[in-house]
């Protein structure tokens, strides 16, 4: 930088051909004119001018440079980036009044901010020269509008120079100082992007340092009061019409190719450059004469008039944007009654909008002169390659704190219903409007965010939530403070978020009053300023702490009145950023196994939560930030493979229909499971009892919504849309296992027939589960749906009697045996000693209980042998039968090891059932009552003698093996259960599969039965259609044997209005196949998709770590550098 500054200050002290950027040329021109002070505000395309003086100022104020380069430091130029353009111009005016020449630099809209100063000072006087450089932006390359700043000449009555090239810019700026001094008026130099950002050849001259002694002259003009203004106005206009301007007109309004021409062209600014190039390359200098105007206000009437009077046939006016010179020319022609055709805007494609180009100029000239111009040799078909290409708009940089702030806000503020309006502002923060963030509803001009918010809040009072204003720290100081004060003053109800990234980012990271890296300035802290304004709710937040930021924003939105959050983290480009993010020895990496794929099933045709998942991803993303209890949903695996996290999040989103459909996608018995499933998904999770996700309760809840419950349209659609397999399957036994297999197979296009020995379907669920434990009507309805879906039922067809296995094997393509264990083995210690009316098997007892035909009188004592679920069911039924009944259970297991489900044991004890673990019946005796001699199981000695009325045997369930003897005794267990292949439920007989309790490895529970039925269905599909995947819930099914670690009673959550609130503490995360959350909501340039998985581009990653908080599947994390194979990203050139 030192060399560059030395260059600017010295090395061209003698004329030297060089190439300079238009803006650099402006700066040089001012230096050569002896400028003393430069005041500006950053703004493309003007910023380079200010940066030259910024560098010069820093150079000159450095002590070492003072020693080494005394000549260069001698005439110090003052420079400041003022808080905004208004103060910049005011200060420049003041500087000039103190007799120091001043330069003020700004972009086009900056002049709007400064205009009050400009409009007033012209009625007074300045002392030293004051030049204002305004940079327009035709085509809006980086501006909100393409206003034509030449109008300021007319508006304020100040001279305006309009350079066409960098050389023009240099000379005009220099001469502008001379003109300003002559007229005692500010002079405008108005460039455009094309001039400011072009490099051209020019020669510099000597820098003559100004010889100015500061003083303040007490002139009457210094005081602006109405009494003086009328006269001042006249004085002003006289200044501009005087002779002092003539030499300037002469120098800067130039004629090209004078002679007797038919055609005349008047042009100005960049238009002149385009024009001359076209004229030269087509050799048209013989045809036209050109008047190129450089000093355009005051209007060079004499120059234009004398040009017009040369007798041209036609005149063409060429200027970008508004027809200012064109209209003036037309007026001159009219006033002087000149008969001449004047052409301008709307001729030959010339427009008032956008930039000119060589093509536009070419078209206009050939139309004007009526001739063909030299055309370039186009290639046919080449242009089509440039069409419909993906656009590349600007984005927030990787690691930008604005992205983090917007993301936290996005999790809180739903964008669909539009209730919370987001008012954005100018600068890098404005890029939050672009996809995928889409977090801005309005952007206007600098500082409008806060005014828009308070105005809208007032207009929409009473309707909708708080209005939010968002702006950067630079913008806040520029024009946000005044608006914010008004909001406080008028008691507005708004939230203001100030993105404090410690710099003015977009224009090249300049300092501002709130963030200064130079010790020569005072830094103004924002928070005390806010407190001083009387804002009660003013807090700093750290945007990369997503969780805290979320909660802070939430509080701020809820607070009444004006609340302000200062989101403070440095811009990526600042030197302090690297230390801020830290993690020197780590990089961020994506675990591909967790990104974008669901582990659960490999068959991607399986439907689960594969609906459009943008909303579900969002609710998972919010849960991740809000919730206290994160839980990997794969720990909650359901043997039927219900997607628990999809189910859970649908409920959080209050989409109960989808939640129920997700359950029904996998199993038929949603309500029944909601009633009596033993919840392995909850119990096996290993979490503390307060931290269990209440899946079963939620299942019951969603299947309790009648309108959804009775709507089976999704399953019906599946049946309709299934490709018919033209294969038939016989299912023997209409218990939950068999019916679940039927449900799956009919939805895959199979013909299914169910054979059941009883008169009704339902198996143990219907007959053995006591009615008080579940909704049997709902169960009936669920079963009836199978008929609706096309399953055929044959009742009172028992295996081994009305139907034979071998015959079924011939009549059907596959058979599934799900006959259950139909008998209780005879227990001699009871059966041999008691009359038949004094004892029951558990199956018999429960069937009769459900039929209401149980011959047990009130006041009876019922003694149950067995420690399993049916024993519990018997005991509880006994107590419910008559309130005066007593029930007691004896089992050989200890309390902890009772095979019954923990919560069933708990229910029994709560209901007064006496449980006697580690006991067995030594013998029974009949009499008036039944006498039971009970021994301790460990001690094998007498415990006590009991008198009871009935005994129920609830142990030793067995299969009725004679019914399926074809399988061969060697393939059965001693209880008659059938051994199967654990992957498919296949038996040793071809095309015979087994499901349910009769299956040797079956877990004796409802979900165990359902899952084994589903497994058998997959087995059938593997055999009959070559289905190549294994049963999706296999691992969970095989894991059912794990006992619960604790015996937890059922968790109950209040399913009222606060349900989703209560569920909010949980975050169930699991990779979901269609997750696109980071792409859809974050848009960090360092996150790229390669072959369907997200990858971190380490060359772009700035280690801000935001993505780690964002991924709802916890697929992104810090990885130590050594452990990662870093290949292409460590470069050594």
């Amino acid at each position, binding site marked *: 930088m030192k060399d560059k500054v030395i260059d600017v200050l010295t090395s061209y002290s003698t004329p030297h051909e060089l*190439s300079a950027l238009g803006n650099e040329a402006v700066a040089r021109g001012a230096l050569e004119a002896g400028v003393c002070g430069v005041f500006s505000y950053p703004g493309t395309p003007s910023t380079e001018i200010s940066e030259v003086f910024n560098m010069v100022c820093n150079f000159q104020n450095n002590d070492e440079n003072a020693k080494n380069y005394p000549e260069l430091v001698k005439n110090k130029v003052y420079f400041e980036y003022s808080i905004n353009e208004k103060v910049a111009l005011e200060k420049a005016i003041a500087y000039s009044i103190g007799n120091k020449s001043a330069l003020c630099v700004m972009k086009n809209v900056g002049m709007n901010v400064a205009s009050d100063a400009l409009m007033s000072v012209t009625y007074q006087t300045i002392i030293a020269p004051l030049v204002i450089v305004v940079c327009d932006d035709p085509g809006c*390359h980086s501006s909100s509008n393409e206003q034509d700043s030449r109008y300021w000449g007319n508006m304020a009555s100040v001279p305006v120079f309009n350079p066409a090239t960098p050389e023009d810019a240099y000379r005009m700026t220099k001469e502008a100082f001379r003109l300003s001094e002559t007229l005692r008026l500010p002079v405008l130099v108005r460039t455009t992007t094309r001039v400011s950002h072009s490099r051209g050849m020019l020669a510099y001259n000597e820098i003559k340092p100004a010889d100015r002694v500061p003083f303040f002259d007490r002139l009457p003009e210094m005081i602006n009061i109405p009494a003086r203004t009328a006269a001042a106005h006249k004085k002003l206009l006289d200044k501009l019409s005087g002779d002092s301007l003539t030499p300037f007109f002469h120098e800067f309004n130039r004629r090209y190719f004078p002679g007797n021409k038919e055609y005349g062209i008047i042009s100005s600014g960049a238009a002149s450059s385009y024009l001359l*190039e076209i004229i030269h390359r087509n050799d048209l200098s013989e045809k036209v004469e050109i008047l190129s105007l450089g000093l355009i206000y005051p209007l060079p009437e004499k120059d234009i008039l004398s040009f017009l009077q040369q007798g041209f046939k036609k005149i063409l006016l060429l200027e970008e944007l508004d027809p200012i010179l064109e209209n003036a020319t037309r007026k001159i022609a009219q006033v002087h009654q000149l008969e001449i055709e004047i052409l301008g805007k709307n001729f030959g494609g010339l427009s008032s909008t956008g930039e000119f180009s*060589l093509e536009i100029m070419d078209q206009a000239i050939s139309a004007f002169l009526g001739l063909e111009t030299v055309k370039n040799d186009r290639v046919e078909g*080449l*242009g089509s390659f440039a069409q419909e290409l993906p656009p590349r708009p*600007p984005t927030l940089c990787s690691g930008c704190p604005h992205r983090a702030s917007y993301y936290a806000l996005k999790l809180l503020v739903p964008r669909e219903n539009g209730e919370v309006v987001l008012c954005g502002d100018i600068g890098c923060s404005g890029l939050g409007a672009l996809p995928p963030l889409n977090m801005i509803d309005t952007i206007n001009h600098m500082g409008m965010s806060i005014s828009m918010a308070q105005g809208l809040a007032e207009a929409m009072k009473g309707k909708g939530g708080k209005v939010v204003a968002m702006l950067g720290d630079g913008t806040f100081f520029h024009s946000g403070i005044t608006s914010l004060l008004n909001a406080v003053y008028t008691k507005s109800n708004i939230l203001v978020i100030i993105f404090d990234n410690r710099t003015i980012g977009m224009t090249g990271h300049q300092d501002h009053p709130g963030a200064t890296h130079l010790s020569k300035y005072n830094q103004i802290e924002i928070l005390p300023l806010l407190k001083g304004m009387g804002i009660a709710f003013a807090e700093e937040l750290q945007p990369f702490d997503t969780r805290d930021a979320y909660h802070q924003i939430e509080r701020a939105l809820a607070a009444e009145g004006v609340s302000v959050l200062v989101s403070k983290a440095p811009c990526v480009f600042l030197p302090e950023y690297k230390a801020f993010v830290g993690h020197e020895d780590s990089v961020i990496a994506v675990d591909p196994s967790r990104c974008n794929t669901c582990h659960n099933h490999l068959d991607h045709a399986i439907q689960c939560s594969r609906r459009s998942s943008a909303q579900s991803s969002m609710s998972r993303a919010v849960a991740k930030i809000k919730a206290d209890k994160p839980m990997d949903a794969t720990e909650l695996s359901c043997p039927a493979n219900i997607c628990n996290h999809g189910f859970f999040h649908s409920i959080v989103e209050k989409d109960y229909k989808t939640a129920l459909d997700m359950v029904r996608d996998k199993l038929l018995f949603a309500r029944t499971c909601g009633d009596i499933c033993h919840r392995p998904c909850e119990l096996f999770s290993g979490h503390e009892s307060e931290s269990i996700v209440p899946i079963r309760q939620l299942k019951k809840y969603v299947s309790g919504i009648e309108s959804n419950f009775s709507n089976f349209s999704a399953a019906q659609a599946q049946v309709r849309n299934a490709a018919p397999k033209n294969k038939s399957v016989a299912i023997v036994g209409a218990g939950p296992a068999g019916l679940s297999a039927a449900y799956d197979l009919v939805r895959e296009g199979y013909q299914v027939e169910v054979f059941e020995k009883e008169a009704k379907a339902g198996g143990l669920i219907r007959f053995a589960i006591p009615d008080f434990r579940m909704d049997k009507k709902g169960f009936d309805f669920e079963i009836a749906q199978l008929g609706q879906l096309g399953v055929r039922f044959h009742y009172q067809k028992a295996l081994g009697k009305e139907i034979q296995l071998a015959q079924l094997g011939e009549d059907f393509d596959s058979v599934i045996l799900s006959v259950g264990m139909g008998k209780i083995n005879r227990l001699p210690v009871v059966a041999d000693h008691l009359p038949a009316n004094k004892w029951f098997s558990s199956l018999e007892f429960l069937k009769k209980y459900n039929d209401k035909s149980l011959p047990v009188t009130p006041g009876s004592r019922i003694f149950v042998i067995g420690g399993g679920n049916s024993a519990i069911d018997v005991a509880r039924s006994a107590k419910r039968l008559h309130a005066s009944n007593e029930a007691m259970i004896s089992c050989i297991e200890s309390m902890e090891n009772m095979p019954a489900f923990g919560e069933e044991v708990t229910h029994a004890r709560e209901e007064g059932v006496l449980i006697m673990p580690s006991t067995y019946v030594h013998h029974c005796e009949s009499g008036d009552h039944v006498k039971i001699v009970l021994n301790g199981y460990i001690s094998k000695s007498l415990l006590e003698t009991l008198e009871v009325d009935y005994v129920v045997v609830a142990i030793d369930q067995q299969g009725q093996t004679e019914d399926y003897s074809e399988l061969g005794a060697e393939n059965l267990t001693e209880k008659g259960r059938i051994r199967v292949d654990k992957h498919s439920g296949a038996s040793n007989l071809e095309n015979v599969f087994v499901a349910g309790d009769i299956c040797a490895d079956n877990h004796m529970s409802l979900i165990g039965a359902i899952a084994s039925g589903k497994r058998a269905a997959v087995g059938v599909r593997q055999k009959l259609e070559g289905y190549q995947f294994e049963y999706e819930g296999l691992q969970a099914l095989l894991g059912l044997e794990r006992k619960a670690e604790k015996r937890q009673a059922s968790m109950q959550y209040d399913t009222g209005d606060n349900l989703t609130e209560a569920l909010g503490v949980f975050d169930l995360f699991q990779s979901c196949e269609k997750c696109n959350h980071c792409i859809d909501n974050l848009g960090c*340039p360092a996150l790229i998709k390669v072959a369907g998985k997200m990858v971190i581009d380490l*060359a772009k990653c700035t280690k801000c770590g935001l993505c780690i908080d964002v991924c709802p599947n916890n697929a992104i994390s810090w990885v130590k550098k050594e452990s990662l194979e870093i290949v292409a990203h460590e470069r050594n050139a």
Partner: protein
Amino acid sequence: MKETLKTMVVGVGGQGVVLLTDLLVEAALLAGIPVASSEIYGLSQRGGSVTAGITFGENTNGFIEQAGVDILIGLEPLEAQRCAAYLHRGSTVVIDNNRILPYVVNAGNAAYPDIEKFVGFLTAHIHKVIYITDDLGSIKPAVRNLYVLGKLSKEKVFPIPYECLIKAIHNIVTPDFVTASLRTFELGRNN
């Protein structure tokens, strides 16, 4: 060199389009060739497109036009293809296959164009195409544009002598990067 030679440099913000432009201007000056340039880079630092025109010869201002670009330096393929209409039959094109996906492509909402098809068309229809597919993995991203310049510098149509380019690199490039820049330039030139 024909009377006017128009060059265009295109790429994504951060690839060094402006640096390359400044280099070419400086080198042309050293060679005594009249030169001008015009750059468009407003929001480019935020990952947007950057284009610059450099014109050699009298009476030019750095302006470029459709079918009027003699040499196109494409530091990024999509941006190069975006300028297809600026080429004519006599053009020379250098494209560095250094793809930077815009957001819409990354998000799966639009497809990155078939660059090979574009290059194939150019090869059949214009004067010369240099499609850089060398493995440049070892080159620092910051100086990759010098490799491209090196490759181009050998072409007959390129108007600036070697010595002037070397001197320009010394004059323009930040001191810390001069060595790497020179090495990378030579690599491109000799590869």
